[in-house]
């Protein structure tokens, strides 16, 4: 009986959410009829605010013929400083990070707790996505082959930022009596700055971070994803002539119901299926890229020649070397989110006595995301000769893969939708954590956030709200301002953790467990 009640309760919330969506359906359909009108009205209303914030966050200085957004410089400079401060940690402890993920240092008594592998996989499913497919194509189509070199460099440097923020995330997380945990930049800003006798500043930065994180979750982590996956869905179902071409609301409702079932109904099986399929798609994607590269093995040397030559001569690229560098740095920062602070929220949940171990594990994230997956995309685009075809974004990546495998665009569409879905699930959680940080841990307030999040999925796929998306994109990057300030102030804590851990590692106090 109890089980039946639980079962009913489990389904009640998503069913109610679905009912709410169905009730909204006529009005959304009407809204669709007058879509242009409503889109335009919302755009007009939000544009002044959006433009002002976007122009501040993405304030760009002209360098040569191109504009360099300062926020990208802010992230790359921070990554360089962390790399130097921790003595090239990303190279020295790369092998140790792999050992940790494999579970070599996992105490068998902790079986059943969150493993390093699980925290890494969950954080990765939030970052691997459109940036790896579309972002790279934008980088090489504007910045030329040379942009790839700078993208790889930014990815390698970004590993040190992730290391710093994820160590702090675990070190300063909140652990509650019932065993649940909450962590992330808002917590280390507040608690860490408290220890540095700056509690007011820490709290202020934490609140600023949380507000930006909520904005980012609704926009870049939700509407943008819904919008892009709908576009790709329409493309493979016939483009303009597709039955779905003008039915974004329908796609949105289906997507919102699936998202709602996972985040409101707690039906983990769907999420688990996606979380299994996403790495599988990533493997297929990288595998297909490798096959194309192997099929053209005689051109690999030439491709790397192009990449290096382009990186240092900038031939044929607007802005020359600087133009290539800006594009590479920008797309790496957009893709791996190092320094933004989002991944620190997911990594905080791992069960470990040593916060630094999660830092080591997290530094693999920009490596997998940017150095491996983004580079594969770039190599395929260069080798297949699609660079200079006039295409950009997903279309460029799609046509590059299509030149080798005609069926690939269909697979890419599935991948884009799945990546978008897993990114939405991750960001719904990041946004929720920021929300509960502001309003307190309260079930009713959590429910409000989740329902609104689902509604935004419908909005994202049914409307073309350019300014809203720009605004939310800038919110994601605004997170980097309080976060990186926090990382600068709190990095001595990470250094202390690193020193005591490495001393015990070399003395043999911390050693591998024998696993059967």
């Amino acid at each position: 009986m109890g089980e039946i009640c639980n079962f009913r309760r489990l389904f009640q919330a998503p069913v109610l959410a679905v009912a709410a969506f169905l009730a909204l359906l006529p009005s959304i359909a009407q809204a669709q009829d007058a879509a242009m009108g409503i889109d335009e009205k919302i755009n007009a209303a939000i544009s002044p605010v959006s433009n002002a914030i976007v122009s501040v966050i993405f304030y760009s200085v002209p360098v040569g013929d191109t504009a360099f957004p300062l926020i990208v410089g802010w992230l790359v400079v921070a990554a360089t400083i962390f790399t130097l401060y921790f003595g090239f940690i990303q190279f020295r402890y790369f092998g140790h990070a792999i050992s940790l993920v494999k579970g070599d240092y996992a105490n068998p008594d902790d079986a059943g707790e969150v493993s390093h592998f699980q925290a890494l996989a969950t954080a990765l499913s939030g970052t691997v996505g459109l940036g790896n497919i579309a972002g790279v194509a934008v980088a090489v189509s504007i910045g030329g082959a040379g942009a790839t070199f700078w993208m790889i460099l930014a990815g390698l440097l970004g590993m040190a930022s992730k290391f710093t923020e994820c160590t702090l995330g675990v070190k300063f997380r909140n652990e509650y009596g019932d065993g649940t945990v909450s962590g992330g930049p808002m917590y280390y800003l507040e608690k860490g700055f408290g220890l540095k006798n700056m509690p007011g500043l820490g709290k202020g930065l934490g609140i600023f971070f949380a507000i930006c994180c909520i904005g980012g979750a609704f926009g870049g982590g939700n509407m943008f994803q819904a919008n892009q996956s709908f576009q790709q869905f329409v493309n493979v179902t016939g483009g303009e002539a597709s039955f779905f071409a003008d039915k974004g609301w329908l796609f949105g409702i289906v997507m919102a119901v699936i998202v709602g079932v996972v985040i409101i109904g707690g039906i983990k099986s769907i999420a688990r299926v996606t979380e299994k399929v996403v790495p599988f798609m990533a493997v297929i994607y990288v595998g297909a890229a490798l096959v194309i590269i192997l099929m053209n093995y005689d051109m690999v040397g030439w491709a790397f020649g192009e990449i290096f030559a382009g990186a240092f001569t900038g031939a044929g690229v607007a802005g020359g070397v600087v133009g290539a560098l800006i594009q590479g740095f920008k797309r790496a920062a957009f893709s791996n989110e190092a320094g933004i602070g989002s991944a620190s929220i997911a990594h905080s949940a791992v069960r470990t006595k040593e916060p630094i171990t999660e830092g080591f594990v997290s530094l693999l994230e920009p490596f997998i995301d940017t150095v491996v997956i983004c580079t594969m995309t770039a190599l395929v685009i260069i080798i297949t000769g699609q660079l200079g075809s006039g295409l950009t974004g997903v279309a460029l990546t799609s046509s590059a893969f299509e030149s080798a495998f005609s069926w690939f665009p269909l697979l890419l569409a599935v991948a884009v939708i799945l990546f978008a879905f897993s990114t939405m699930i991750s960001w719904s959680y990041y946004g929720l954590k920021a929300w509960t940080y502001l309003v307190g841990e309260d079930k009713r307030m959590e429910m409000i956030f989740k329902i609104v999040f689902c509604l935004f999925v419908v909005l994202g796929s049914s409307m073309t709200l350019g300014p809203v998306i720009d605004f939310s994109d800038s919110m994601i990057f605004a997170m980097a301002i309080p976060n990186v300030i926090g990382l600068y102030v709190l990095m001595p804590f990470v250094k202390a953790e690193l020193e005591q851990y490495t001393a015990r590692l070399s003395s043999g106090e911390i050693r591998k467990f024998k696993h059967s």
Partner: protein
Amino acid sequence: MSNVFIVGFDGTKDGKRALDFALERAKSDNAEVHIVYVLEWSPYSFLTPEELEKRHARRKEEVELASSQIMAPLLKELEGSGLSTHGVIRYGKIPDVICDVAKEVGATQIIVGRHGGSDMAARFFGSVPGTLVQIAPVPITVVP
């Protein structure tokens, strides 16, 4: 050295059959019986961010439930049997955990039941007794 038996117990009637068999043999061999209950778990499975957050709390609940609903009543029932019985609750892959416990306590024999099905899944992926037969460090008895 005294005899130590390991019994894999999963709360089903097949597990109960294996336990009854083990208890009978233990009486005649004057053996100690360790009953192992395994909560299936892989550190490489995928979890959502929310599941990550609640994992520690869920683990505590699961262990408490396994202990109060399965192991504690079972050990209580065996109290009057005159045998030395111990309960072990662990996370992991069932065959691996059973072998680990067998090595730790210096077991002389492992006893498990079998479901007896002939479904395709077991043919493709193997079954717990099948795997144990391959990897057990000590003799194993599979109770039909």
